[in-house]
Structure formats: structure tokens, C-alpha cells
């Protein structure tokens, strides 16, 4: 009797879970649905809930010169940001994990505090600074702000990974005659690969999706992908080409979703173990 009661209750919760999943995923479905339809279907008085006449026309309309210019800009800024952030954060993480020196704890506190500063609290003076240095509306200027913005978290993330490799492994290699430098690079470094990938992906996601700073320090003729996407929707209501906008959203979102799935588990686990202990 009791068993039956339990399974029905489980089924009920299951049904609720699926219903909520559908509601929450709906905007994502709506993007895909819109991207695959001809524009006439979307302007019909009744919305079409499934793409009946599938077409890739919208993607054709969206893959124009402007898109590729924005793609190039976004890729440049993102790659610079990933490369610099990973290298700087890696050496800094080694320093705070493997060395003990004066000011070490202060550095960690500063890093954690900077991580909390929202871009809105600094972007006016960053905008003025880039103006004065002739870096306004340049790849270099935007990348500089991005590297500085992602660095605190990447340092903190990598520090955890370096801490996770026992020093004893290196010391054993040193006893066998390796130099400290060589011991680190042959023993510890390969074990840090997952950490380097996670922090690189994190920097990628931030730079690729970033909107606020790009609005502030880039001109409208020099847009990263999020601003390009937004540019398509600010024309007058009648003229918005919704299938094209949705196709653009698909193009911007797919790489992000793929990368996000790769690192997600690691990040959530991290927060909880930190939180529960505190």
C-alpha cells in the first residue's frame, strides 16, 4: 500500500519536473523554431509552434559582411583575453600556492575583493582612461579591460588546482636530480591540464558574452557579436527580421553552450564545497 503511494507521488513530482523543464527551456526552443522558418510564417496572424516549412534562409541572410566583421572582432578580443588571462593567472597561482612570501595573503584578499567589483562601478573611468591613451574603440583597449576583469577569478580557480597537486611529487623528482623548474614542469604541469582548460573556457565565455564594457568602449561601427545581435533588433518594430535575429542568436549561443557544458559540473561542485564548509 505504502509502496504504491510512494510511486504515485514520485510520478507526480516527475510530471511537475518535466512541465517546469518545458517552461524554462521554451525561450531556447523559440529561438531555434524561429531561426528555421521563413519570415512570412512569423508574420502570420497565428504563430507556428513547430517549423513546418523548414528553411535555412535566415542563416543565409544573417551571414553577411557585418557578421564576419563582428566575428573577427569578437574572436580577436576573446583569444587575447583567454591567452593573457590563462598565462598571468597560471604563474600567479603557482606563486601563491607554492611560495610563501610577505604580502601573499594580502594579494589573495585583493584578488577576491576585485572579483566583486561590478563593471558599472568602474566603467566611467575606464572609458576616460582608454580615451586618453588612444585605446578607445580598439581591440587592445577592450581586451585589456577583459583580461583585468577575468583575472581574479582565474587566479582563484587555478590556485585550487595547483594546491591539489602534492608538493611531495615534485620533491621526489628533485631528490632524483631534477631541478626545481624541471620537476615542476614534468611532474605538476601535466596534472594541471584540467585546471588550465577550465580557466581558459571561463575566460572565453566571459569575453564572448560580454555586453556592458563593449557598449561603453566600442563605437557602433565596431561591434562585438552581442552588440551586432542587438543592433538587428533596434530598428523599428515592423522591420525586424525575426528569423534572422533568431539565426544570429543560434550562431552566438552554440559555441557558448558547448563550452559551458564542458566545465559546468566542475564549477558547481566547487561552489558548494566552498559554501558548505564556510
Amino acid at each position, binding site marked *: 500500500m505504502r509502496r504504491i503511494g510512494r510511486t504515485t507521488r514520485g*510520478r507526480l513530482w*516527475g510530471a*511537475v*519536473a*518535466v512541465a*517546469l*523543464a518545458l517552461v*524554462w*527551456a521554451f*525561450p531556447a526552443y*523559440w*529561438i531555434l523554431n524561429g531561426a528555421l522558418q521563413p519570415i512570412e510564417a*512569423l*508574420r502570420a496572424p497565428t*504563430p507556428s509552434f513547430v517549423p513546418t516549412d523548414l528553411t535555412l534562409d535566415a542563416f543565409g541572410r544573417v551571414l553577411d559582411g557585418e557578421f564576419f566583421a563582428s566575428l573577427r572582432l569578437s574572436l580577436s578580443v576573446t583569444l587575447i583575453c583567454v591567452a593573457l588571462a590563462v598565462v598571468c*593567472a597560471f*604563474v600567479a597561482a603557482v*606563486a601563491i600556492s607554492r611560495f610563501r612570501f610577505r604580502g601573499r595573503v594580502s*594579494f589573495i584578499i585583493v584578488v577576491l*575583493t*576585485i572579483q*566583486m567589483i561590478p*563593471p*558599472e*562601478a*568602474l566603467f566611467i*573611468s575606464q572609458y576616460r*582612461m582608454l580615451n586618453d591613451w588612444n585605446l578607445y574603440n580598439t581591440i587592445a583597449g577592450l581586451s*585589456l*579591460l577583459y583580461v583585468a576583469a577575468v*583575472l581574479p577569478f582565474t*587566479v582563484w*580557480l587555478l590556485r585550487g588546482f595547483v*594546491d*591539489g*597537486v602534492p608538493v611531495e611529487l615534485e620533491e621526489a623528482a628533485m631528490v632524483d636530480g631534477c631541478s626545481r623548474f624541471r620537476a615542476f614542469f614534468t611532474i605538476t604541469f601535466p596534472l594541471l591540464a584540467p585546471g588550465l582548460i577550465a580557466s581558459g573556457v*571561463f575566460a572565453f565565455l*566571459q569575453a564572448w*558574452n560580454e*555586453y556592458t*564594457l563593449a*557598449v561603453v568602449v566600442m563605437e557602433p561601427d565596431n561591434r562585438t557579436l*552581442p552588440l551586432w*545581435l*542587438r543592433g*538587428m*533588433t*533596434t530598428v523599428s518594430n515592423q522591420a525586424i527580421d525575426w528569423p534572422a*535575429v533568431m539565426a544570429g542568436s543560434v550562431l552566438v*549561443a552554440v559555441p557558448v553552450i558547448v563550452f*559551458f*557544458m564542458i566545465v*559546468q559540473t566542475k564549477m558547481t561542485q*566547487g*561552489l*558548494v564545497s*566552498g*559554501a*558548505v564548509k*564556510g
Partner: protein
Amino acid sequence: MTDQETARVPLTPTPVTAPDRRRRRRRGGLGGYWLLLPAIAVLLIGEGYPLVRQVIMSFQEFGRAQQFGAPPEWIGLDNYRALFTDSQMWGVVVRSLVFCAVNVALTMVIGTTFALIMLRAPRVPRVVLQVSMLLCWAMPVIAAMTAWQWLFDSRYGLINWTLTNLGLGDFTRHNWLIEPLSFYLVATVIVVWMSVPFVAFTAYAALTQVPEDALEAGQIDGANAWQRWRFIIYPSIRPALTIVLMLQIVWDLRVFAQIHYLQGVGGVPSETHLLGTYIYTLGVGQSEYGMASAFALFVLVLTLVLTARYVHALLKAETV
């Protein structure tokens, strides 16, 4: 950096293995300093210098003369005085606080409820819900905004069509963004939708740590569902929820991307500013760098006060 709260999750990674807590560290030498140099340089140029400069600018006047090249004039605390006696600024602050409170409350309640549902649902539906949450969490903020803009569109939007066809009134060509209250309703739907997955995943992970025997003991003692939640489950997930709550407060105070986007596609900016967009308009729009800097510092201090506890908890949790 973006409002994409989602990805910018300041979490602590789990150490790969449980290391010997009394790790030996190399002492002496300048090696540590050399390795820190690149990171310190980047942070000084990208964040430190702008911060100092912003403090200086907040004591300066940037008027018409400065636009023609005159050096900025020192005016002491005038910017702060002007700011704190300005009713528009207080309007923005109050609106931001209310918006933040409503959004955080909704996000926390819905997110925790989702986590409880995940815990009770059988395996397959649970995974379906988790995949859906993950998809929504991963979605770039502007891509999601386009979908919501279209859903709420006055002419081709699904929401107007649905409401009209359900007989809830005539919503044909109803504009959701023109009225400030309705504008904030749309913004709230979007922000809550985006923020729930993070809360749900964190709360779910914490819920799976709740000791099974405590729950069983409660059941044997005849505790009902509410009592089990109140006296067993809630106390053990509270530390995780507190941190999530604090991060949500900080994130929902600013929400620049969502508000700026909605203002650009139909909202009335002067009536819908929150902290971030107000600083932007003051500074970049009106070249009032002094006032904008003073206000930005106010937001900065507010954020740091709100997050001090989190930073403290992180430091305490990890053996630094």
C-alpha cells in the same frame, strides 16, 4: 563582468585530491614576487588605476570649459552634495533596491523549490529538468534577450497572442515596455528566468548533502513535511543559500545588460534607469564625469559592504 551572472560565478574549485593540509611551501627568495608580476601589472592598469582616477574625478567638475580642453576644476565634495540632494538619484536608488529585493526573493524561492522538486522526482524527469536549467544558464545574455523581446513583441509576440486567445482581454498590439511598471515586470521575468538555474543547482547540491539518518529520525518522530524542512533540511542548506543569496543581491542590483537592452528596444530610459544605466547615462551620455564617478563609487562601496561576508567566508573555508 557581464551581467551574465551565470557564468561569472565566483566559486572555489575543489582541490583535485585532498592534499596534506600542512603543505610545505618554499620560503625566502623573490621567486613568488616575479611570478605575481604579470597579474599585478594587469590588475593595476585595468582596475587599480581607473579606481584611483575615479576617486579623483569624483572631486572634480567637468563642465563646458573642460570640453574645450581646460583642466578639470577641483570642487571638493560638491558632486557628492549635489548627488545626495538630487531626487532623481534617490529615485534610481530606491527603484534599484526594490527591483533587487523582488527579483532576489523570487529567484531564491523558485530556485529552492526547483531543487526540492529535483530531489523528489525520479531519475529521468530530474535529468530532463537539469538539462533544461543548464541550457538556460548557458544561454548568452543577449541571445536570450532577443528571444524575450520577440516573445513580448507588441505585434508578433507570442505572449500578446496567447493572452488574447485565452480571452484575458484584447492584447493586440499591447506594448509591454512603454509603462515603467510593465517594463520592470518584463525585466523581472527575464532576470528571474536567467538566475533560477544557478540557485537551483547550488541548492540541489546542498540538499543532496543533507544527512539521510536525520531525515529518517525526523520521520520516525512524526515530523510533518513542513517541520522536516524547517528543522532539518533548511538548517543544513543554510550556509550554501546564504552565499547564493548574497551573490544574487549583488548581481540583481546592477543588471545593466538587461535594462540597457530593453531601454533600447522600447522602454523610456529616463523613467526606467537602475544603478548601472544611470551611471552610464550620466557619464558617457552627458559627460558628467564627476557626478558619474561619485555615484559609481557609491555603488562600489555598497557592493563591497554587501560582499564582505562572502570574501571572508571564502578565506575562512580555504586554508590560505
